[in-house]
């Protein structure tokens, strides 16, 4: 399985802080998004937002980054701390 978590505005939009998806046939960040959208149609709109950022195992990555079972994949809006 792949652990998926959401933060801030995205967490509120999806009404969900995190979930898990099967790692079968899911090889990249883009495919994680695809799988999440298939699992829940309402999410597709929010997950295709171009400003969304992604981190895999706490490292910022782009959509083509490889993922595998056991990874933690996080999606969130641009950061606004400080």
């Amino acid at each position, binding site marked *: 399985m792949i652990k998926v*978590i959401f*933060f*801030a*505005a995205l967490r*509120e939009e999806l009404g969900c802080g995190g979930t898990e998806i099967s790692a079968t046939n899911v090889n990249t960040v883009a495919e994680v998004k695809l799988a999440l959208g298939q699992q829940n149609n309402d999410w597709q709109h929010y997950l295709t937002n171009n400003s969304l950022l992604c*981190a895999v195992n*706490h490292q910022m990555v782009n959509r083509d980054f490889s993922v595998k079972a056991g990874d933690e994949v*996080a999606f*969130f*809006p*641009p*950061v*606004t*701390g*400080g």
Partner: protein
Amino acid sequence: MNMTSLINNYPEISIQTEDFDHGVEVNLLEKHNVEDGAVVTFSGRVRNNNLGLKVRGLFLEHYPDMTEKLLAEIIETAKQRWNIGRVKVIHRIGQLAIGEQIVFVGVTSKHRQDAFAANEFIMDFLKVKAPFWKKELTELGESWLEAKTSDKEKAQAWSK
């Protein structure tokens, strides 16, 4: 390597809900640290307005563990770029009222220019890299803050 960074029990990064004492933090940065003559601090508070709207408070969310990792990378980059001694970064999370402290960055150095530059560098990258998100409670309701182009530009300016 600066001797002062070898002192134990002095965590460089603290993500916390509770408030902090500015004076205590400066004293800790300077404790047993007679090599570094200069200390520069930045501290940020919740302002009473933003883009013309009255603000009543802030809620701060973060991505645990990743925040610490990112901040440690930013501090490490600053230490490679400038001759600095000790660094302390405190960032609060949770519900904050007007006037409350949000963030503290303290940097010591032998020469002031290094401490000024490294401190501003750390703040500029904290703003655009560290996974914190602010939700503002204004007179018009709650809303997540949008990232500022000006913050992105400030961070990019360091690579020029």
